Each structure stands twice: as C-alpha cells, then as structure tokens.
C-alpha cells in the first residue's frame, strides 16, 4: 500500500493508458438488442398463444421451419446479449482481477454453452420429435 500512496495522482489516474477498445462490446450489445426487439416479442406472443396447449401442439408449432429458424436466431441473440450484459455487471462491481477475469470468461463460456444446448434441443424437437 505504501507504494500506491507515493505515486502521483496523475500516475494513478493515467493507469495503464487507454485500451483503445471497448467499442465492439458496446456495439454488439446494441446490435443484439435491436435483433431481440422483434424476436423476443415474437417469442412472447407465441408463448401466450401456446398457454395450456398440449405437447403435440407445441411440437407441431416448433417443427414449422420459420419457427425453428426464429427460435435458433433468438437463442443466439439472447445468449450473446446476456453474456455482454452480465460481463458489464461483473466489471462494474468486481474489482479484483483474480475474481473478475475468470468470472467474465466463465460467463462467456456458460452463455455459449447455454445457446448450444438450446439450439440442439430446438433442432432435435424440429427434426426428431
């Protein structure tokens, strides 16, 4: 701690310099958000219409090619948006690099895995079920 105090305020403020990046994350968050507006509204409307329907109705609905495609697109956009959003939350509140960087990497992998699981499940229902 002693060394930190002896550094000038300017040194501490400058830190390691500008990363000259951060735009891609911000941009992808907005791109996925725009994609999610129609996709998520479509999902909400479909789920409402499917309330109380039996298994066969649901499978028949998901087998339709347009629905399968939309569901896959939704899962991709949703998991990407989720990963980016959760990353920002972790970066805001967790400051120790030892906790922050593994947490962010885990979030990225978990969201990717979640998307793959969802897509595989969708495709299985669409082609086998």
């Amino acid at each position: 701690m002693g060394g930190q105090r002896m550094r000038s305020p300017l040194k501490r403020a400058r830190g390691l310099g500008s990363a000259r990046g951060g735009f891609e994350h911000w941009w992808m968050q907005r791109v996925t958000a725009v994609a999610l507006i129609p996709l998520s509204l479509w999902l909400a409307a479909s789920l409402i219409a499917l309330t109380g329907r039996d298994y066969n109705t649901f499978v028949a609905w998901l087998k339709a090619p347009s629905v399968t495609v939309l569901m896959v697109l939704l899962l991709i956009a949703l998991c990407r948006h989720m990963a980016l959003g959760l990353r920002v939350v972790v970066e805001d509140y967790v400051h120790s690099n030892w906790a922050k960087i593994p947490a962010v990497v885990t979030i990225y992998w978990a969201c990717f895995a979640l998307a793959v699981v969802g897509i595989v499940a969708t495709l299985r229902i669409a082609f086998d079920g």
Partner: protein
Amino acid sequence: MFIRSSDELPGVTVLRRFPVPRNFNVSADSRIERGKTWHAPSDATRVKKFEIYRYDPDSGQNPRIETYEVDLDTCGPMVLDALIAIKNDIDPTLTFRRSCREGVCGSCSMNIDGTNWLACTRFISDTAEPATIYPLNHLKVIKDLVPDLTQLFVQYSLIEPWLHTTTPEPEKERLQSPEDRGKVDGFYECILCFCCTSGCPSHWWNGDRFLGPAVLLQSYRWLIDSRDEATGDRLDDLEDPFRLYRCHTILNCTRTCPKQLNPGKAIAAIKKMIVQRRS
C-alpha cells in the same frame, strides 16, 4: 413528476434514500455517528433545523451528524447563507468551501437533501425539514463539508483541456464560424463543481478508472471545437472500456447539474463519434 429542468424540485418523495442499511458498504473509519444538537435561542421565531455532516481530522473520531437550529431572521435566503450564519454565530469550526456566492465558481457544491447542488443557489425554503447536508459523494473528506477533489481534477488534466494544433499559429486568430462556435455552447459553461461526477453511481464504483460526466463533458467540448486538430488522438484516449464505457446512461448527472448542462448528451455524442469513425 415530469421534471423540466434540473433546478426543479421533486414534487413527491416516495423514498428519501435507497433501501440499503445506513452503513452499507461503509468502512469502520467512515461510519457516521450522532453528534450534538445546537439549539436556537429561545426568542427565535423562524427556526430551521440543519443536519450537517461533520468530520474533524484532528480528533481521531468518526464523522458525525450535528443538528443546528438556525434563526432564519438572522441569515439570508440561501443554504450557503445559513452555513455562514452557523459559522459566524453558532459554531465557528464548521468548514466548507465557498467563494462567489452566486453560482458561478463551483466551490460550494455539496449534497443537500440527497442531491448534489450549489449551496449558494439553493433556497432554504426549498429544503426539507430538517435539511440534511453532506459533502459530495464517495470522496475522501478532508474536513466537514470539504472533499478531496484531487482525483477529479487530475482526471480533468488527463483529457488535456486545451487547444491541440499542429498548424502553425496564424497572424491573427484561428478562424471559427458562428455556427461552429455555437456547437461549443452548452459545454464550455461547466464550472467544474463536480456535482454530476460525485452523483454518478458508475463513478462511485469505478472512480479510479471511469472519467465521470464532468470530465467527459469537457472532453466533448474539445472534440467538437472546430479549431482543435487532435480529435483522433482525443478519441483514442477516450475509447476505453472504463474511461468512457462505464457510462451506462444512468443520467443522474443531467438531473443534478446546477448549471442546467447535459453531460449525458455529451457522452452519447462522444460514443456516436466513435461509431462514426469506425463506419
């Protein structure tokens, strides 16, 4: 309910503070204790209570809240007048920054009734009963209502707030059309009171790396100055996940600016410039 300008007071108070424990995330040194009450003389008719944050660095004790009963007939209409009356008549140890007393120097910025404003432009009649006065948020306190603004000013120096040119100086002035000069309006008027930066939750959590609304507003002032020739370098220095992109458009800054400036808008404009240069 529909605030038009930052000097408008909220109509209804649903919550005076977020529902967190009073000492949430507060270190032992910063815990605020109850201090004494200074009563007004018995013949005072218009008495107003002020609960003020006090901290004495020489005492070794924790900060405390002290209550002052002020006779409003003995002081002017502004909160700063009350503070000066307290210092003159009641407790001379009360310490605060002040200078112009007319809202142009930015010295007396503090947290009054939960929001940041200049004490010299806040009417006492517009405060709650009792009025609560704290120093600017999430800053090291030097004494009483005086926070350590070193980090904020050093972040300001980081953006190099002066004209960067490589073109040699012309014989007379560097030319600028009235339209271009107009683009700087709404940004050059900042008095660096830091009400916005100290009210930004992102700056609370990441103030060491996030530049904050005041500094970003000023960096935009230089970015859109048509005479400045280092726009690309300025954007390079700003484009950083923490320096710029910790701004999540919370907009506490625009809500609290005592000079009715719009840091949120400036930051959005900086982000748009970054989009533009990548398109």
